[in-house]
């Protein structure tokens, strides 16, 4: 049931065109579902249609992926997700690394009804799957942090509108993911995207965009290359279109493993890619049809205007005991407005399934959003939630409410704040389970003093080479593999998804399901022994290299081999 007192945050709201567009799309897909069920469409004909509407067939049922554009949700939308979880699924949903929401137990016959419900709160599943431009993600602190040049979400919304059912880019060679940010700190794994746009200022102090392309995980990981250091505001759509057009024209379509833009760029070289894009860009500029008018940018930006921050608030965080102090240490960040803070809700209390929330938890979070955070929450690519605008004086009350939900783990950025894909527990593509490994490691490192002693350490787990769990970008990455039907786990060290992005290196042969947590513990133990003052795990790894870690990780296997 929708709460009539829901606070409407400052975010994009559908106009008449959007409502018609989404409504027509919902009815079109409802008709396609009906035709499929009646046998008027074969599965081969239906599959690309359902994928374009976020519907997969997984291990146990259909999975429906719902777009959360740039991770921003209103309390009304969160309540609707809770309602869908309760009515059509098994009472829970899963926040993904693309900042979307997935339901794992959906019936095909219910999908039209679900999509109509979503449309009623300005949500949809369009382009959450298939070979098209996927949901654009953004820095989860956008519009709240004092580190940014400007809120990057208006640009993300413009990209969403430009790329939704773009006639030229609906059937790309492969999927295409875009991220936006506006500060040096990278919270959106931007360099791992097919394309990323960062708001920057040039030497004259003018605001524009730096565009990167060619990043990606999967079978062949690459970090993105800078395509252009500075694109003028009005030219950004023309430049993005030029990148996509070159990709669409020149990428291979004969081999599924070589169809992403990262392969094209790293085959022809970034310099040649820049040349081709520039040529296309100049052509598009000459035509002038893709110039982004300032008035339009301003119109969209107005939706994201900062809320009316109260003035004269106390700019200190109250004292509310040691649990609260620990939570503040890791989960509360500086806000641009005096008296305000940004609070991260980690959906990672040790033992929990990373990114999962029940209908009741979602509803309780919606209440917290309305009461304390102008009705708004952000979904992060690390499968957490963020309350972007909370008064510092309210933090103890928020913490108490989260504690009651079991969502007050003081572990943002720590070893138990683990990313994990759904893995073999749900996913048709997976080779191994991810979630139980995340749960096991989180329980192993549950002791809070130990977590804080270890400091920032990002573990990311994928159940297959497609890397939905971002294992390439983990300080410690874990990749599940299948050996004759049995799960094994490879360790990778040294990856990063932040501004110091790096591709993790595979340590060696995989560990068994019952060995992997021990191996991680030995690796962490060596780090604690070897680290110098102020070093994160990643810094120590970069200083001493793989070999010492490898020696301790495999010590039991080496001992067993030596002793026979």
């Amino acid at each position, binding site marked *: 049931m929708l709460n009539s007192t829901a606070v409407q945050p400052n975010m994009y709201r559908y106009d008449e065109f959007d409502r018609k567009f989404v409504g027509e799309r919902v009815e079109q897909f409802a008709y396609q579902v*009906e035709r499929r*069920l009646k046998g008027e469409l074969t599965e081969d004909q239906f599959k690309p249609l359902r994928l374009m509407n976020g519907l997969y067939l997984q291990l*146990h049922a259909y999975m429906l992926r719902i777009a959360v554009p740039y991770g921003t949700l209103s309390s009304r939308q969160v309540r609707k997700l809770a309602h869908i979880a309760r009515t059509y699924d098994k009472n829970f949903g899963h926040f993904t690394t693309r900042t979307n929401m997935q339901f794992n137990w959906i019936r095909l016959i219910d999908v039209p009804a679900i999509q109509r419900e979503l449309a009623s709160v300005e949500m949809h599943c369009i382009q959450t799957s298939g070979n098209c431009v996927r949901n654009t993600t953004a820095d989860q602190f956008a519009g709240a942090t004092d580190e940014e040049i400007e809120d990057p979400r208006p640009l993300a919304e413009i990209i969403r509108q430009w790329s939704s059912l773009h006639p030229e880019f609906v059937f790309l060679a492969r999927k295409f993911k875009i991220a936006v940010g506006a500060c040096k700190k990278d919270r959106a794994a931007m360099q791992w995207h097919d394309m990323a746009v960062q708001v920057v200022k040039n030497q004259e102090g003018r605001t524009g965009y730096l565009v990167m392309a060619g990043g990606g995980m999967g079978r062949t990981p690459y970090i993105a290359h800078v395509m252009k250091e500075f694109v003028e505001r009005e030219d950004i759509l023309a430049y993005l279109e030029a990148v996509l057009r070159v990709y669409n024209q020149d990428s291979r379509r004969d081999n599924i493993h070589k169809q992403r833009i990262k392969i094209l760029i790293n085959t022809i070289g970034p310099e040649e890619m820049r040349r081709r894009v520039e040529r296309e860009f100049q052509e598009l500029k000459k035509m002038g049809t893709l110039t982004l008018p300032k008035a339009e940018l301003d119109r969209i930006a107005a939706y994201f205007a900062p809320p009316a921050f109260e003035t004269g608030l106390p700019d200190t965080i109250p004292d509310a005991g040691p649990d609260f102090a620990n939570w503040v240490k890791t989960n509360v960040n500086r806000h641009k407005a005096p008296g305000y803070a940004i609070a991260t809700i980690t959906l990672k209390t040790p033992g929990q399934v990373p990114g999962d929330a029940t209908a009741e938890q979602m509803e309780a979070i919606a209440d917290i959003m309305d009461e304390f955070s102008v009705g708004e929450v952000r979904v992060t690519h690390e499968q957490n939630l963020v309350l972007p605008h909370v008064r510092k004086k309210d933090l103890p009350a928020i913490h108490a409410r989260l504690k009651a939900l079991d969502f007050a783990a003081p572990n943002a950025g720590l070893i138990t704040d683990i990313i994990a894909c759904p893995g073999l527990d749900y996913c048709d593509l997976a080779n191994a389970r991810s979630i139980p490994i995340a749960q096991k490691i989180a329980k192993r490192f549950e002791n809070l003093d130990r977590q804080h002693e270890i400091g920032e350490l990002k573990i990311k787990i994928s159940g297959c080479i497609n890397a939905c769990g971002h294992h390439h970008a983990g300080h410690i990455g874990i990749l599940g593999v299948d050996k004759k039907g049995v799960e094994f786990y490879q360790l990778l060290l040294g990856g990063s998804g932040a501004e110091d992005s790096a591709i993790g290196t595979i340590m060696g042969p995989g560990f068994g399901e019952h060995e992997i947590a021990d191996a991680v513990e030995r690796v962490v133990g060596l780090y604690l022994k070897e680290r110098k003052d102020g070093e994160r795990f990643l810094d120590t790894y970069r200083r001493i290299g793989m070999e010492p870690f490898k020696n301790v990780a495999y010590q039991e296997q080496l001992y067993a081999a030596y002793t026979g």
Partner: protein
Amino acid sequence: MTAAMPAPTLQVLTANRLRDGAVLYRKGEGWVLTLAEADIYADKASADAALATATAELVRNLFVAPYLFEVRRQDDRVVPVKEREIIRAAGPTTYLYTGKQAGQFPPDPALEGPFQTSVTDA
């Protein structure tokens, strides 16, 4: 001394039901919801024949994606060889209160007719 005969490969035929995605197992000329009730094919010819029959039935639009997978006998039970099929047969290992392991069975496939009128009618 003669070498021991290799154990025969045992196979089961599975698919997903079109209307709700439920995991199905072949039994006779129809489908059941539990692996324990499924037919087990002890030779390649009978397994391939069952798959061929099911593939021909795809035009009825009641199920999708039929395929064979290996099982073995363990005590009195039939157990899939691969983890993937163990999880498919039971449910997620993370929420033991969900899936077939928790007795959550969608309507019996034998009772399911072809699609009638309303797409929202369960």
